[in-house]
């Protein structure tokens, strides 16, 4: 049983300063989609202003159809769910098995799935920047993306990130 002293800088009535987090989500695999969403929902829960810039393969996280089908790489992923010699990761079905295994891990740990994380992020007011160049390069249309995305280029994101206290590239 411990009692904690009230920190001097958190006196009631102290004016809160809203911090800002700017994230880049550049990966389109299931395992790499979680970290930006975990950080974003946490920061927003702390009262921070949060924006995520989804670029290159990371744009798949905002893609209505592809988001449901993100996979865990079984090849060249030595820390992946299936610990087998690297070449065996190229066997048919290995990617599907690794993906299924990770989904089971998350479910058993009572972690939200990606769609639930996206809903949490939107409810918390996280800004979802969709990289306009990636859309052009990969032929992704506005209507392919989930609702509520801000289509933006690098300058718009950098303008947001320039005012951020924390910037991370994932």
């Amino acid at each position, binding site marked *: 049983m411990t009692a904690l002293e009230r920190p001097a800088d958190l006196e009631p009535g102290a004016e*809160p300063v809203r911090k800002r987090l700017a994230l880049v989500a550049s990966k389109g695999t299931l395992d790499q989609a979680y970290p930006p969403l975990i950080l974003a929902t*946490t920061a927003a829960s*702390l009262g921070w202003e949060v924006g995520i810039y989804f670029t290159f393969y990371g744009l798949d996280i905002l893609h209505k159809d592809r988001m449901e089908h993100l996979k865990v790489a079984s090849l060249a992923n030595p820390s992946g769910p299936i610990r087998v010699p690297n070449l065996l990761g190229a066997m048919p079905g290995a990617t599907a098995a690794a993906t299924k295994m990770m989904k089971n891990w998350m479910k058993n740990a009572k972690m939200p799935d990606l769609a639930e994380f996206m809903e949490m992020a939107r409810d918390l007011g996280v800004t979802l920047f969709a990289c306009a160049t990636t859309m052009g390069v990969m032929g992704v249309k506005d209507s392919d993306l989930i609702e509520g995305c801000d289509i933006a280029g690098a300058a718009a994101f950098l303008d947001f990130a320039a005012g951020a206290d924390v910037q991370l590239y994932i």
Partner: protein
Amino acid sequence: MDIEQLEATDTLDTSGLLCPLPVYKAGIALGKLEPGQILRLICTDPGSLADIPAMARQRGDTLLASDSTEGSQVFWIEKGSQT
């Protein structure tokens, strides 16, 4: 501060949940309280010992006290005047 004297307005049990869910759910619960009211938060996430004090500091709430029992921690958080 004597935790026997702390009167919580609300209790949130996040047993079995991992980061970011305890902080996410605590944020929602604290959002429903008035400044000065107290949330009693129960966590089993091993990260919560570090996370909950950090959450209170970042949100501008006050961690009044904490108590460890077998496998779980209880935190008393007084909502600050933010929001």
